């Protein structure tokens, strides 16, 4: 088992390295002009512009830059931002921003998991009934309509209706409600629809018939057998979901002015702040593969049939 974990981690490392290196190379396809504004072009001559770029380190050979990045990484130094927040250490930028996304993310995961799984059970339990119908309607709306639209209306109408602030304030808990709800809605639908699907799948299995034939009440069959088994299928996705909450949401964070991670990647790419982009890509890739890995571990933990060594097959 130890060697299996080592092997898996090794594979994950390869994936992370490929991801980071490919994004690194992609970034170099962007024109350097992004480092200058119109004003800069008026003010600076060619020599000044070149000097500026050289000092940012973006004129170096990409492989030198990559080596530099890797070297810094070994020493725990993620570098400094070059254009978005010039000279601020990337680590401190992320340390400032990540907690916001993380807090909203975790709060929303708790809400969306508990309500979503509850809704999923309700929908599966009353399949084709009213609850199922309403749940499906909800999931359809949330998943089908572009989120920009409904998030916008939630902000506009609910904040007006309730007299809540339209944006987030750290010191006013009432302003936390809408963003948290907004964060939760899509996840809620996701949990509900998948749990329902897995439960309906499980419901047709022989062991459920047998459990019913033993005379167990439906609620107990639901809880003790169907739900439990359906959750096992779902549970492997949890770690990744939880870890990736750190990514935040561009839409929600920009609507509510939450200073989280959501827009950071997009702004950093647009401003060609390579140190930030590289760090975030690295972070997401590590969390991504780690999430899958933890998901498999968790799966092995909850499902007695799975031995860890079998997981390599599951990855396929």
């Amino acid at each position, binding site marked *: 088992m130890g060697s299996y974990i080592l092997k898996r981690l090794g594979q994950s490392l390869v994936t992370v390295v490929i991801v980071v290196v490919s994004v690194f190379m992609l970034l170099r396809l962007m024109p350097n002009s992004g480092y200058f504004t119109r004003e800069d072009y008026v003010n600076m001559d060619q020599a000044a512009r070149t000097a*500026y770029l050289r000092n*940012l380190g973006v004129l170096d050979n990409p492989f030198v830059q990559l080596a530099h990045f890797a070297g810094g990484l070994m020493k725990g130094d993620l570098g400094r931002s070059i254009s978005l927040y010039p000279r601020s250490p990337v680590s401190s930028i992320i340390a400032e921003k990540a907690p916001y996304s993380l807090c909203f993310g975790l709060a929303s995961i708790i809400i969306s998991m508990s309500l979503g799984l509850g809704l999923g059970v309700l929908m599966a339990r009353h399949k084709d009934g009213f609850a199922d119908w309403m749940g499906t309607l909800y999931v359809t709306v949330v998943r089908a309509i572009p989120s920009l639209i409904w998030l916008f209306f939630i902000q506009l109408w609910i904040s007006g209706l309730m007299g809540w602030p339209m944006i987030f304030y750290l010191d006013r808990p009432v302003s936390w409600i809408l963003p948290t709800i907004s964060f939760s809605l899509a996840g809620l639908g996701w949990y509900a629809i998948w749990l329902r699907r897995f439960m309906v799948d499980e419901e047709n299995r022989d062991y459920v018939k047998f459990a019913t034939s033993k005379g167990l009440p439906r609620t107990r069959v639901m809880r003790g057998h169907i739900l439990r088994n359906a959750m096992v299928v779902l549970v492997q996705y949890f770690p990744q979901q939880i870890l990736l909450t750190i990514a935040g949401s561009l839409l929600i964070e920009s609507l509510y002015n939450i200073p989280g991670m959501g827009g950071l990647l997009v702004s950093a790419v647009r401003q060609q702040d390579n140190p930030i982009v590289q760090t975030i890509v690295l972070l997401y890739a590590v969390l991504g593969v780690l999430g899958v890995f933890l998901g498999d571990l968790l799966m092995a933990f909850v499902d007695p049939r799975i031995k860890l060594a079998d997981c390599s097959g599951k990855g396929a």
Partner: protein
Amino acid sequence: MKKRIAGISLVLALIALGTAGAATLDRFDGTYIAEGSSFRYFYTPTTTDQKVAANTQDGLVEQDRYSRFVPSLAESWSSNPDFTEWTFNLRKGIMWVDSKGAKTAYEITADDFVEGFRHVADPKNGIKNLSKDIRKLIFGLNNYYLDLVDIDSGKKKDITRDKALAAFEGVGVKALDKYTVTYKLNVPTPFFLSFLVMELFLPVEKDFLAQVGPDFGVGKDKLLYSGAYYISDWQRDKQIVFKANPFYWDAKTIKVKTINLQKVTDPNVTVQMFQRGELSQADLAADQVKALAGTKWAASIYSDPPAADRFSVTYWFVQNFSSSNPEWKAFINNLNFRKALSYGIDRVKLNELDDPYKPASVIRNTVIPEGQIYDEKGRDYSDYPGIKEIRAAGNYYNKAKAREYLAKALAELTDGKGNIKGVQAAKVDMKPVAEFQVDGKLPLQMLYVHFNDPTDTKRALLLKAMLEDAFGKENIDVQFGQVIDDMFAESVEPRRFDMIYDNFRFGFADPSAQLGRLITDGGINDGQYSDPEYDKLVDEAAKKYILSERYKIFAKAEALFLDRCYVIPWKMGGSVYTITKVVPFTSPKGGFGITRFKYKGMVVEKDPITVKRYEQLKAAFLKELAAVNTK
């Protein structure tokens, strides 16, 4: 040039008038759109950075409510007769303050100004605002800077970097003693004070800078404060809180003790927050003004272009005289066609996109903004003969004249059968912005390049409709190209356009700030036209040191330039409607540098300022201004 001392009594009198009977607050709640890059105040790419620099640091001089240059950290100054050496005497005993508002052991001395400029002048520090103009202005600076650049690039190897840095001794910025700093310039510069209000000339404490090293300005405790406020709280991308600096040299003028700026990107949210009493001020877009019409807020919405911080900006259309589109190249080099273009563009309608109420009030037909520079008799440059008429012309749009000039142009440029003389069918390759085929026949195909954002796209569509209406679709066919972020790099520099518009800030207090870089091969001659007559006039004007003489020739040059339609100015920056609790005309004003971002002296009331009240205050202020200028 005479020294000007602030008329403190006048200020006090006005404040007394402005605030009579109204409850004032010691707190201002504002917003900002883009997070600043850092608190390294020498580098201010965003408005937020400029606000930070202006309020946390003071320079040698600043501008007052009337835009006059008044003492700040320098108590007094003098210059030699040909304006090439300027000496500033500092106030004594002013201490740097830290992010807790406590006095530090560091005194603000002449060395701090030298140190600040040393920081700016080192290319390693990437201070983009250190323009060619300034490098060429300060004695010895350009060589110092370029040497360092060459060393960094490996081009120059005969000298070490440390040695080159030591050569700063030779640059014309020096501390004569603890409280005296001098600037030695390459050319006579009577308007040098307008450079000193830029962030580049702010001081920094050498020991502190050495202590924080690369962390300078990355957090509120990674810089020292010399200005009216210090940053007491900061959350990246969320909020900046300024608190009044109790040890400020001019502490008694600070009325508002707390400035709380929140990042709000959606203008609709800003308005809502204002309505809920969460903000002291909200800028309104045209549609929002409309939305508030008929509400109780309507009485407090006004627009004051000269008060807007973008007022000294002028927008103009740039035509590409060296276009790779042969049809356009033939036409644009024809004066009649340029005049036709100028008459064909309805400035009022274009401005209506920004300001549906008073679109005519934001028209600007000149390059140099009005109300910015005055000669020794207090006469506004824009009132000089030649310029004044152009200013007064208002909207140049005239369909009949446009057609008339177009007919002339067509007669000169086409064979009467729709063929453009000397132009063959060709493929115009302006990839990636655009690529199209021209046939050498009418309609004339032109490529208008614009930003891919909602307002610019609207403007482009409107311009197309306008030109096709004025000239007829049989004569002109406007095509579009889009750029995402950077107009210059994507389109202007590689000349991938026939026409674009651009905007330029009036950088320092002399017409040469704009006119000087619009000459043949000038820094912003993006259309690549060439007019020796104009160049000669500009050259001639720059040699005059008596302002009235200088302005007279510049005015002549500008009038000629505008008459020949090398660019088509159409609007001033900053037509913004506001609803505010800030009493107007209480804080510093000025188009140059960063003074206009200062909150110093600002008075905030409990209730929004009504339009009526604003008008009263404005009338009083204009009267004072006239008195101050002609004094």
